[in-house]
């Protein structure tokens, strides 16, 4: 165990160094995150204030914490492994990995840890600013502990999912459209756009002011469906679950455990999927010669 950790730690270390090589870039991306943060913050602030400071039973403070915490979670879970794998496949370098004495999946995981460690520093200004803006309302020690477990699980899911997408490049060669699709679908179904429970709240509570003349049942069904789809896709387990646990949007212990269970399910599922795709991909390499 220790031996294999040592074996792969080199990749981690290199990835950390790589991150440090582009300091200017890191600073600029921190600003980029700030802008995204401000856009979300000001927009939701305006929306909640328009309704007297609360929407459904969620207070503006709580929701802003959710939005901001979601951004922090997102940047922490940021994963570029899909692009780098797709690149390796397109350039043919991937076959080099078959002749080396290490596991391709472990190697990429070690690299990903390195990237995360390297980017933690550029994350800290974001956390500080977010703290001053919203207080990042701390709920309870229990919530914090569950959050830590949940974000760890989310990290695994994000990694495996990106691994899977990257390897699809074996069959689709160009990785432009799929990446774009990943980004934009993620926004809607991960809770980044709005908390997943909002979908259900709209679906259940009805619509009092809906400005387009559509039957109420249809609109309710539409939002409920969005919520259900969210739970059928892995994206909510990557962002919504940890963020909602931290901010207390999911606060019932039983519910928390169910969400964690869903995360574990996705890990197992993704692990199987990645193994399957990788074994097929290996055949592809040996047939096509990379």
């Amino acid at each position: 165990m220790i031996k294999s950790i040592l074996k792969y730690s080199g990749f981690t270390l290199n990835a950390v160094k790589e991150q440090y090589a582009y300091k200017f870039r890191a600073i600029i991306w921190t600003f980029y995150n700030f802008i995204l943060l401000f856009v979300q913050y000001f927009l939701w602030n305006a929306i909640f204030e328009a309704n007297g400071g609360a929407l459904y039973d969620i207070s503006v403070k709580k929701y802003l914490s959710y939005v901001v915490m979601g951004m922090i979670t997102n940047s922490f879970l940021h994963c570029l492994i899909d692009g780098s794998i797709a690149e390796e496949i397109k350039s043919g370098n991937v076959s080099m990995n078959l002749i080396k004495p290490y596991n391709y999946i472990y190697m990429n995981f070690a690299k990903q840890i390195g990237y995360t460690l390297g980017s933690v520093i550029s994350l800290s200004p974001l956390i500080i600013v977010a703290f001053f803006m919203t207080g990042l309302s701390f709920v309870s020690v229990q919530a914090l502990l569950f959050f830590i477990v949940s974000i760890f699980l989310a990290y695994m899911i994000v990694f495996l999912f990106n691994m899977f997408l990257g390897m699809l490049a074996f069959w689709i060669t160009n990785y432009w459209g799929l990446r774009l699709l990943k980004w934009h679908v993620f926004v809607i179904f991960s809770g980044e756009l709005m908390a997943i429970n909002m979908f259900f709240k709209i679906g259940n509570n009805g619509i009092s002011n809906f400005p387009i003349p559509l039957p109420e049942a249809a609109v309710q069904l539409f939002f409920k469906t969005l919520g259900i789809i969210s739970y059928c896709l892995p994206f909510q387990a990557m962002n919504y679950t940890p963020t909602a646990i931290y901010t207390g949007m999911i606060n019932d212990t039983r519910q928390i455990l169910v969400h964690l269970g869903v995360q574990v399910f996705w890990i197992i599922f993704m692990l199987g999927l990645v193994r399957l795709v990788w074994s097929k991909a290996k055949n592809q390499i040996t047939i096509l010669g990379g």
Partner: protein
Amino acid sequence: MFKFLRIYSAFIKQQIKSLMEYKIDFMMGMIALGVNQISTFLVIFAVFTQIKAIGSYSFNEILLFYGYSQIVRGIDHLYNDNIWVVGWNKIKDGSFSNYLVRPIPILSHIVMERFQFDGFGEVLIGLAIFIYAKINLGIAFGLAGWMVLGFFFFCGLAIYFSIKLATAAIAFWTVSSGELMSVIYEVNTFTKFPLDIYKNFFLKNFLIYILPFAIVSYFPIAYFLRDQNFISNLLGFRYYHRELLIVFVGFVTVLFYCASRFLWRMGLRHYNATGS
């Protein structure tokens, strides 16, 4: 002029051809851009199931801002996307020199080289939302109104152009400025909604006077929806003729355009002096 159209159409034809090469990827990309358009719209949709208005803006007014901003953004996206490549790569890998040994103006060459079909998603959805909102609001622009809107539209495009040009020009000194371009460009997200709903003094003035994205869609639509008291408050100075806003928008646009062209020219001179 005719010659430029011919070159441009030749480039466009080729791009359609190469898009067709990666069919599945292209389809997924198009779906992705559609999904992206839906997402902001979804927020508006969800919010207005509960709320009658955000700030002083009704559902249809919000839509009018949103739709218009997406049209401008989309058109810019369509024709002016190659400048990104200049900021990210062209100077770094030296291929910028290719523009210098060709007998046509550099900026036109850059623009013509790439036509980004992604922009159609924004334009079409923006147009649909704009028309829907306009009909529901029951506002009529009249011929003069349309001409004013046309002028605003042109100014909006010029602002996008200037901001992208100026940030790309930084690459002449720093070799690559893609990150900076992205950060500055991303600020345009604020233009999707009317600026005053954010209720932030700093942000408001920043977007009017420093990085004038407010010129792009906020002032044009506010001009038609609000009276001049409202806009006076916003600008921070009083003015007595409604039409002065047009002059203001035009003035800021010209200023920004000239400044960015100047920066570009300086950058080019720097490039001519160092070759890298």
